[in-house]
């Protein structure tokens, strides 16, 4: 019997497709975000309000993943931007192949921004790269403030944590200071935005982050092409 070292990634096939997607996004200058949270944390509400605040000339499109139903796609299509539902039929996460398939008949040239709403799940989506520029994790104040410690992978891999449903703070025992502290323990330097989609409080901070992050992605691209 002999032992052969391999040193390969288990999800190398997914990573290969995600790499291909990332290249396409960079070539076409499409800024892509991957939204992850547990079910019911408010991803769809955040995206609804985001689409609502975009001007109609904004070149944005949305992919939304769910195990069943196209309810979210219907909710999001009201704003006039292209939306496509990915129904996974049982799979608890989106993978790069699903994104590639969903984008097959979409002209990426006509887009500046692609928002991907992952399946509601705080664990599995963290393992699958979709070619995005950044992951955004949404944590609602109706959950436990220790979620960053319980599910470190996704908080570690996300650039931004959105603390949602802050209008509920008077009615729940969620300690927002602790939530921030725990997130920063798992991911030192993580950016954090607090907002309520219901009242609109803090929503500007989110839109500013989005605009700033989109600009920095563009600048990186320019820098990278300058070095070639």
């Amino acid at each position, binding site marked *: 019997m002999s032992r052969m070292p391999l040193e390969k990634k288990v999800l190398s096939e997914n990573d290969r497709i995600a790499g291909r997607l990332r290249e396409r996004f960079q070539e076409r200058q499409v800024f892509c975000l991957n939204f992850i949270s547990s079910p019911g944390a408010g991803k769809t509400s955040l995206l609804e309000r985001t689409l609502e605040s975009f001007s109609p000339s904004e070149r944005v499109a949305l992919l939304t993943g769910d195990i069943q139903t196209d309810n979210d796609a219907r909710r999001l299509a009201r704003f006039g931007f292209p939306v496509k539902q990915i129904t996974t039929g049982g*799979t608890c*996460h989106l993978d790069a192949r699903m994104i590639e398939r969903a984008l097959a008949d979409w002209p990426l040239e006509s887009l500046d921004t692609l928002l991907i709403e992952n399946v509601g799940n705080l664990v599995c989506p963290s*393992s699958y790269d979709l070619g995005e520029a950044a992951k955004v994790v949404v944590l609602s104040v109706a959950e436990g403030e220790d979620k960053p410690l319980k599910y470190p992978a996704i908080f570690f891999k996300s650039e931004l944590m959105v603390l949602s449903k802050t209008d509920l703070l008077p009615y729940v025992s969620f300690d927002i200071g602790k939530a921030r502290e725990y997130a920063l323990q798992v991911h030192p330097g993580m950016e954090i935005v607090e907002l309520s989609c219901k009242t609109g409080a803090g929503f500007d901070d989110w839109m500013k982050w989005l605009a700033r992050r989109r600009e920095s992605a563009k600048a990186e691209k320019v820098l990278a092409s300058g070095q070639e």
Partner: protein
Amino acid sequence: MHELSIANAILDAVRKERELLNGARVIKVGVRIGALAGVDPEALSFGFEVLVKDTDLDPLALEIESTLRRHECQHCKHVFTVVDYQVDCPACGSTETRCIGGDELELAYLEVEET
């Protein structure tokens, strides 16, 4: 519960490697899982056992090596494992440390029968 998908990806990878080895009999596959990988070793072992049974790869053992989160101090370059989210440098006390490992989800090795 994406461990089943991951177990499947491991089996696919083993099959691919076996082809490169001209069909040699693979006895064991070693997988490295970091504390930040978001993969539960127990669920993965269970999914793996279920999936491998009665296939061309059966019997194939899975060995999981768990790795902890590792940080490097930006000041004194000390490398340390992080326990209970204590990310400050234990050597010089600096709070500026950088994560350099612990999110692995890797195929580490194969054990193959000698022919």
